[in-house]
């Protein structure tokens, strides 16, 4: 009986380890393919170089790092007010019935394929941006709006869960001391749920950094450092997806090297999100 249990335990351990093995193999593969070109160009030349034209042997991804940062910040600016007010409303004000209807609908947003978001951006958002802001349509602004909507469900549902996890006695205590409902939310509930909300935001950032298809369709993909929200940009993910089909030799390695930068960025974001979430539990 005991040995059978051990066998099952061992089997489960193997299955669990296989996930880690896959991660390691992916990391190994990307590094093996991408490192040579980084060493050839030099880490600073690759990361801080501002010219990308692989056919002339120039491999600088700085404009794309900046582009990714602009779009991510823009998406947060669009998404944060919406998702936070949504989460606060659903957690603190709505009835259970409304919440039961609204929450699945918001989560449904996450299920819409990103090509569809991209298509909506091209057909509906471009003319609007052109008419109201100028420029040509594909730009940081368009990409930020679409990405902001795409990361809305991630941030909303994690923020909502952490707000709901704040014990009801906290609210009762605050209200009993004479605080208004809004004061209770601002000074008691939100600080108590802070770590959960923050890790939700960071996961949202991770999604924004990693999004590819929609961004290719709406960001314009020019390799320039943007000066305004109306300039087109290229993100790291877009760079890989755009050029992979045709890349040979150094060009192909440079795309894998772009992947390394992306891989490390996402890893850092996830570790930070996990640390913050764990910090919350300790408190």
């Amino acid at each position, binding site marked *: 009986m005991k040995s059978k249990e051990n066998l099952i335990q061992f089997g489960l351990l193997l299955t669990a380890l296989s996930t880690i093995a896959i991660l390691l193999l992916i990391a190994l593969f990307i590094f093996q393919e991408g490192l040579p070109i980084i060493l050839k160009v030099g880490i600073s030349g690759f990361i801080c170089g501002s010219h990308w*034209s*692989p*056919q002339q042997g120039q491999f600088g991804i700085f404009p794309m790092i900046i582009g990714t940062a602009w779009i991510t910040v823009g998406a947060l600016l669009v998404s944060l007010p919406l998702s936070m007010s949504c989460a606060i409303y659903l957690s603190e004000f709505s009835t259970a019935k409304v919440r039961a209807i609204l929450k699945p609908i918001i989560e449904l947003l996450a299920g819409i394929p990103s090509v569809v978001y991209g298509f909506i951006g*091209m*057909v509906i958002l*471009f*003319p609007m941006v*052109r008419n109201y802001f100028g*420029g*040509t*349509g*594909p730009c940081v602004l368009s990409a930020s709006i679409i990405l902001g909507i795409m990361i809305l469900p991630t941030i909303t549902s994690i923020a909502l869960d952490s707000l709901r996890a704040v014990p009801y006695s906290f609210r009762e205590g605050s209200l009993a001391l004479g605080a208004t409902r809004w004061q209770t939310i601002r000074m008691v509930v939100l600080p108590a749920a802070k770590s959960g909300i923050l890790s939700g935001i960071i996961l949202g950032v991770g999604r924004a950094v990693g999004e590819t298809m929609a961004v*290719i*369709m709406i960001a*314009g*993909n*020019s*390799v*320039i450092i943007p000066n305004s929200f109306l*300039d*087109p940009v*290229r993100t790291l993910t877009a760079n890989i*997806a*755009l*050029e*992979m*089909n*045709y*890349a*040979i*030799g150094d*060009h*192909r390695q440079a795309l894998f090297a772009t992947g390394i930068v992306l891989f490390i960025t996402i890893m850092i974001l996830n570790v930070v999100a996990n640390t913050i979430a764990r910090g919350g539990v300790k408190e």
Partner: protein
Amino acid sequence: MFKQIASILMCAAIIGCAKGNMQQAETINIAGSTAFQPFAEKLAEEFMSAHPDVRVNVQGGGSAVGIQSVQSGVVQIGMADLVTLPKEAEGLNSIVAAKDAIVIAVHPDNKIDNLSLQQIQDVFSGKVNSWEQLGGEKGEKGEKKTIAVVSREEGSGTRNSFHDLVLKGVQLSPHALIQNSTGAVKMMIQTDPSAIGYITHGVVTPDVKAVAIDGIAPSLKNIKAGKYNVVRPIFLLTKGELQGKAKEFIDFILSPQGQKTIADNGLLPVK
């Protein structure tokens, strides 16, 4: 990426062979240029209906994949749509199977019908950035109407051909928007009144307007007569001389019937 594609192709080839052995059929594998892929598929269909004992597998992947996979022997025939073949294609036999014209296209509402080669170079290099400077209209409120230049991604066969045939060494403006398929470029042009881009002649529809270059419109007549000369070859690449059915298939593509199929579907025949 190529290794994966190559191994997928290899698996496909093995499965294909296994199947083929059962039916005593021979398999021909083709991969490469996405521009020529639909035509190769049509030609393969026709060839297979005439030769029931042969299976022709057509894969896309782009010109680079075509060159790579024929070099590594994964496929017998590679397709590439480049004006000049890169050094990776050294040692391969190349046969021109068809020709394809590249057309400069703008939004149908654009008043411009004709541009000189110099003007096109200036627009794509970013020297000229408003339609007014080309004699076009101002915006509705009299404001400057900026040109939105749309190009393809680095490495694309169409982009390389466009650079060789039209830009001729002039650098593309870094502000140009980049899209990664002919379809996406066309979509940008047909939805943005200020856009200009280049697409293959085969996909021009009334949604976009093809601009004449130095007074020569990219009509089928002008292209066939050789007057409109922004035309690129489509190569079939093989490693050494082909034997058996693969050679028969290439002969079929170059035959009057094969060339007619190519012409009927919007490309230019070579014979």
